[in-house]
């Protein structure tokens, strides 16, 4: 089945709105909230949590008995996570990237690895019947990539997968979007929306993932985003109008499809279009 990533150049453009409304209408899909720095889907989907799982990362521990303070490990570590002097060799677990290189260079077998928790993954059934898996990065941790990778590993091929990816184009977005069949860029018709979206377009093109655009808060701004899409030959798959009632409902954790039946049609037709495109490009 199709794996569809929903992303945006910056937060707050309506990425969660799009992924969650689509998921609410299609209870046999699975929604993965990979925006682990700011997971929001559980607020709207309100899942009954069935399980949680810790995500941990390796860090090196040095055996004082064996270490001769030769400093090889410190010289190797590309992230300067080890300091070695004549009397001591210490590791800084917050800086360590868990590459396991230091143990390879140590001639004295003094390095082993322990694990520390960097976040959690929760899974459950939402109030719409859709399965939701979401991750949460511990405050102060540097990278959510290991959590995202683990979320991505947890699901099979039987269901359509909707991924709420982290905003922007940093490493965590790449991890969330990797080997998706299709992507939806959610943007808004303001100069900011256009500027931020350009970077996402560039990233998806590098990753060779086909995509189209959804314009949220349509008609609130100007035509720049439409002009850009025309110039770049990007398909605009749908528009979600701006509506103050929606903004108010959203603020209390309600989805748009619950507010007004006309949005049900908008999102269902979006879903159908995505799958139609999926058949066209992948035959899946």
């Amino acid at each position, binding site marked *: 089945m199709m794996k569809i990533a929903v992303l945006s150049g910056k937060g707050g453009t309506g990425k969660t709105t799009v992924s969650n409304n689509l998921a609410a209408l299609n209870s046999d899909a699975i929604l993965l909230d990979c925006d682990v720095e700011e997971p929001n889907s559980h607020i709207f989907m309100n899942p009954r949590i069935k399980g949680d799982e810790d995500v941990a990362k390796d860090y090196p521990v040095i055996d004082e008995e064996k270490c001769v303070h030769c400093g090889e490990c410190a010289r190797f570590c590309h*992230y*300067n996570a080890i*300091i070695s002097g004549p009397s001591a060799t210490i590791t*800084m677990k917050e800086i360590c*990237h868990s590459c396991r290189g230091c143990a390879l260079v140590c001639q004295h077998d003094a390095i082993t690895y322990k694990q520390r928790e960097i976040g959690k993954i929760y899974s459950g059934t939402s109030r719409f019947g859709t399965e939701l898996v979401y991750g949460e990065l511990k405050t102060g941790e540097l990278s959510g990539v290991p959590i995202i990778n683990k979320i991505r590993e947890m699901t099979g091929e039987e269901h359509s997968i909707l991924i709420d990816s982290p905003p922007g184009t940093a490493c965590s977005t790449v991890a969330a979007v990797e080997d998706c069949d299709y992507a939806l860029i959610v943007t808004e018709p303001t100069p900011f929306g256009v500027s931020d979206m350009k970077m996402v377009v560039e990233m998806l093109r590098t990753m060779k993932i086909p995509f189209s655009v959804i314009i949220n808060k349509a008609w609130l701004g100007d035509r720049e985003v439409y002009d850009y899409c025309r110039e770049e030959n990007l398909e605009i798959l749908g528009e979600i109008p701006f509506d103050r009632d929606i903004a108010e409902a959203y603020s209390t954790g309600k989805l748009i499809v619950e507010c007004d039946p006309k949005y049900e049609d908008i999102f269902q037709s979006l879903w159908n279009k995505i799958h139609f495109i999926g058949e066209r490009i992948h035959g899946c």
Partner: protein
Amino acid sequence: MIIALCSTGDAMESPVDERFGRAAYFLFYNTITSEMVSVINEAKTAKGGAGALAVQLLVNNKAELLIAPEVGPQALDALKKFKIPAFKQGENTTPELAVLAWGNGSLEMIKDPGNKGLHKV
């Protein structure tokens, strides 16, 4: 004793640097011989853990004491493990003045990390 100092230049009269991990130079002043060695801080533009790399530099140059503006928690932990006490340079504008102030016993020891945590800075 060898004292490490953070400086923007390579002389004892250069202005002190307001950063530890990303100080431009480290000066190593030997109180017994009055000799000074200046080392460009590679950590200034280093990739990961600048504070950690700076501590490594101190260790390599056999520093026994550090005078700095402030030190982040990770680096401070590391300094403790290498038994390098750290003192605040405070209002002293050059490494020379800072050493004199230390000699007078008027420098305050850094016990808590400055900046509530220096992340990769």
